[in-house]
């Protein structure tokens, strides 16, 4: 179906009182690049919006309100019962390694700081080729009536404090502590005023809140690459009434998505059925039955799936392609009822599509190819993936169920 026809069709589906999910998923699967429908459709596909548009405003209002509360509790007033700003800061500064006090709230606070520092390193490194994440958001979280202080300022101060502290309190060789007066230049924030927040700082806040609410996983590197494209999509929505709530809605969609893929981020689940090692093995099994020659060649070179597919599968390919391509790919992925099964077919089709180069190359050239996937034609990859799935379903005598690219 032509692009124009597709978006008309999708709009019609979205206007019905009760969105038919099967029909809706099929339409989304074809891609949501046109007509600015992606943000809305992703919200539905990721269970942030129910299929009944009449319930949207009420659902959104309550979800956004909970998110606001988390910002308050976890970022603005992290030390319970310490609502006096002055006092809070003093106590934090006391909690350095010279004075470990396992009973205090602050040992937890201290531990959180490690998580925060890791998030900070990665949020800054999100899509460095694009200027978007460095630019200020139009919707910072304002902390005072005058709008001069933002929530980001709290995390900035907190990061500064713990960087300073760790630099100032340094263990010396004899086991004692050297306190040196190392000061940290604030160069990183120079381009933003206190009343502004960069988009990467919003991502940082989102990840920190997620880590606090999900202590079992906390933060694992790579989560930034999952949340990045979702936040980007929502905060570039043409519809302002949605765009202004990009942060809160991203949080919910990300949380729902992580609910499905979190096992891949947890080390002790690596070998479990839903863990990353099993996923990589499944991919190799799929390749073996799809293209035995290629599989044998990779095995022969000892080019292990960990070398490339660990990243492919953990990040749902978000580091392999430029952002517009990732968004297009995720349309189909989110739309598919068996989305993580389909991801395996996508990865397998990526291998098969460059089989000639892989068969010809030696270990080093093949590794380079797989780490920098050449000329990505997302449409071609998706068509191939749906074909692979279909022939596999036929071959194993199952019913042919997946959506095809029209």
């Amino acid at each position, binding site marked *: 179906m032509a692009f124009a026809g597709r978006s008309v069709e999708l709009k019609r589906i979205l206007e019905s009182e009760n969105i038919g999910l099967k029909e809706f998923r099929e339409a989304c699967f074809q891609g949501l690049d046109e007509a600015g429908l992606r943000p809305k459709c992703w919200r539905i596909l990721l269970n942030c919006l129910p299929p009944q548009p009449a319930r949207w405003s009420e659902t959104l209002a309550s979800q956004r309100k909970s998110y606001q509360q988390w910002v308050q509790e976890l970022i603005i007033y992290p030390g319970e019962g310490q609502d006096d700003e002055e006092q809070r800061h003093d106590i934090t500064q006391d909690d350095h390694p010279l004075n470990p006090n396992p009973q205090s709230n602050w040992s937890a606070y201290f531990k959180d700081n490690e998580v925060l520092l*890791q998030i900070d*390193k*990665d949020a*800054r*490194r*999100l*899509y*460095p080729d694009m200027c978007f994440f460095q630019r200020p958001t139009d919707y910072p979280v304002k902390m005072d009536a005058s709008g001069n202080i933002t929530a980001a300022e709290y995390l900035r101060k907190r990061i500064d404090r713990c960087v300073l502290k*760790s*630099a100032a*309190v*340094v*263990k010396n*060789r004899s086991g004692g502590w050297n306190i*040196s007066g*190392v*000061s*940290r*230049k604030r160069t990183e924030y120079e381009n933003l005023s206190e009343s502004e927040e960069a988009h990467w700082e919003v991502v940082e806040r989102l990840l920190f809140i997620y880590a606090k609410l999900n202590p079992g996983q906390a933060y*694992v*590197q*790579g989560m*930034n*690459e999952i949340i990045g494209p979702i936040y980007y999509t929502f905060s570039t929505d043409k519809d302002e009434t949605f765009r202004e709530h990009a942060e809160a809605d991203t949080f919910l969609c990300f949380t729902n998505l992580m609910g499905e893929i979190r096992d891949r*981020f*947890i*080390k002790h689940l*690596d070998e479990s059925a839903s863990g990353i090692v099993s996923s990589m093995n499944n991919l190799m099994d799929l390749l073996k039955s799809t293209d035995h020659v290629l599989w044998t060649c990779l095995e*022969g*070179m*000892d*080019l*292990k799936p*960990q*070398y490339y597919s*660990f*990243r492919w599968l*953990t*990040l749902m390919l978000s*580091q392999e392609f430029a952002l517009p391509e990732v968004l297009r790919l995720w349309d189909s992925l989110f739309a598919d009822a068996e989305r993580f099964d389909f991801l395996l077919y996508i990865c397998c089709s990526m291998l098969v599509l460059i089989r000639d180069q892989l068969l010809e190359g*030696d*270990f*080093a050239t093949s*590794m*380079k190819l797989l*780490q920098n996937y050449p000329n990505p034609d997302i449409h071609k990859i998706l068509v191939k993936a749906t074909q692979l799935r279909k022939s596999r379903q036929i071959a194993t005598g199952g019913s042919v169920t997946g959506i095809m690219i029209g």
Partner: protein
Amino acid sequence: MAKRSYDLLFKLLLIGDSGVGKTCILFRFSDDAFNTTFISTIGIDFKIKTIELKGKKIKLQIWDTAGQERFHTITTSYYRGAMGIMLVYDITQPKSFDNIAKWLRNIEEHANEDVEKMLLGNKCDMEDRRAISRERGEDIARQHGIRFLETSAKANINVERAFYELSEAILDKGPNKDKIPEAQPLPKPRSELSKCCN
């Protein structure tokens, strides 16, 4: 394919805490450039660079690993085949220095016994934020009997030298290099094996 483009193949590994600058160091060495912001490494990255040393063309296969604990099960599988390991800390981050012992234990557990090691204190361009003195770096390296350099990927200090010194140490081991082919569980295509033996 038949043309021999190098005499020897060395496998090097970069390890160390997240954010210390492993990817920047490798990028500086392979592309002679610095990027202030790099995407964080998930799993493992891979680069090739051919250098000349004592009249020999040496192909370096360099593996850049992810620093976060979560990835250790995945990344330690690369230790075994490595002939040289660069352990990097950040001179402005005491934590990354404290973790050296932990990384050395990883090497002991997972790498070949005769692997050449080198300790790098990176970001030495940031004098104003230095938290670990040069002497402390030298001391810990001496204690463990490993080479040491302070580097800056940003200001291009000692990066090339680090790779050359590590490669030279591997080269100087001499007879060991003949054992390399069989002893390598890390991937090595047959075509390449024959190249380095004649």
